[in-house]
């Protein structure tokens, strides 16, 4: 975020936080109250003051207005992630304890369709929790994830299998966080990147 265009200058003087920072500040207050285990007025006021201080001292890049997340999509994504986490945990646990050799692995390039930093981050994070994949590197300009994958089936087809599962997971992430991106093309999900230029 450039210093001229940015709404968050370091320093405690002047400048109220931008309204786009209200969500992150709200989250800070909620988290603060959770840590204190209380919502008494003293704790809430302390949390609000702390949130103001943090935003002033450690300004985060303000995200441009993102498409409204879809509640249904988010619930669906959460259910998929939990189910996949269960599956992948059992799979890796089984590989760990079963007799015999550990399966071979590969590092596979998987292109993403969205170029938005937020969408790439969310997809990469979730892919580390689901069966068989681990993010090794990310090339942001081309939107490519490099994933370490366990080879459970045919070694010839590991690349296609991983790319297919990445594609499905990205669709779920987009459906939850940037609904309409799939219908209108991924341009909607590219808002974040465009606004940064």
């Amino acid at each position: 975020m450039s210093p001229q265009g940015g709404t968050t200058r370091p320093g405690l003087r002047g400048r109220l936080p931008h309204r786009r920072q209200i969500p992150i500040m709200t989250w800070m207050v909620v988290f603060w109250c959770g840590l204190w285990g209380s919502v008494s007025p003293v704790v809430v006021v302390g949390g609000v003051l702390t949130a103001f201080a943090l935003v002033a001292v450690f300004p985060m890049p303000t995200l441009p207005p993102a498409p409204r997340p879809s509640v249904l999509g988010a619930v669906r994504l959460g259910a998929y992630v939990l189910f996949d986490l269960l599956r992948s945990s059992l799979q890796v646990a089984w590989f760990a304890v079963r007799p015999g050799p550990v399966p071979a692995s590969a590092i596979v390039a998987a292109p993403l369709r969205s170029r938005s930093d937020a969408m790439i981050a969310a997809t990469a994070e979730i892919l580390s929790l689901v069966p068989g994949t681990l993010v090794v590197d990310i090339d942001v300009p081309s939107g490519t994830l490099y994933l370490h994958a366990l080879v459970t089936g045919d070694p010839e087809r590991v690349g296609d299998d991983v790319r297919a599962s990445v594609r499905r997971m990205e669709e779920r992430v987009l459906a939850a966080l940037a609904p309409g991106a799939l219908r209108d093309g991924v341009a909607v999900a590219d808002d974040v990147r465009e606004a940064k230029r």
Partner: protein
Amino acid sequence: MSAWDWVSAVLLLSGSLLALAAGIGMLRFPDLWMRMHAGTKPQVLGLLLVLAGVEVQLVPDASAVVALLFVGLFQLVTAPVASHLLARAGHRSGVVPRDQLVQDDLRVFELECAAGEHPESSPPQDPGPRAEGRG
């Protein structure tokens, strides 16, 4: 024992078993990346199950429940990031042996970057001669 105690016991035990399997994986798996699989998946789910087992016992105490929810949430958010950084460092430094890999698209990408084929991308560091003998 009440029914809730049984629920709690099952959750705690299954969580502990998953954490144990993750630990065995750490010992048995041959390289950093395989170990990171063990460190992100069974370990995270194991912790979540243990937390759920404890939550069941603490239910009337809302502040403790919320605190444990935060523990679980931050584990979900940070474990993939930590494993990604370790995995990337392992690849870029070239210290993780790659002979187990059936394919390595990232190495291909590094070589293409070195040949100037991706001017937009910030190339991964060339691991240098140290990795050449191992790749």
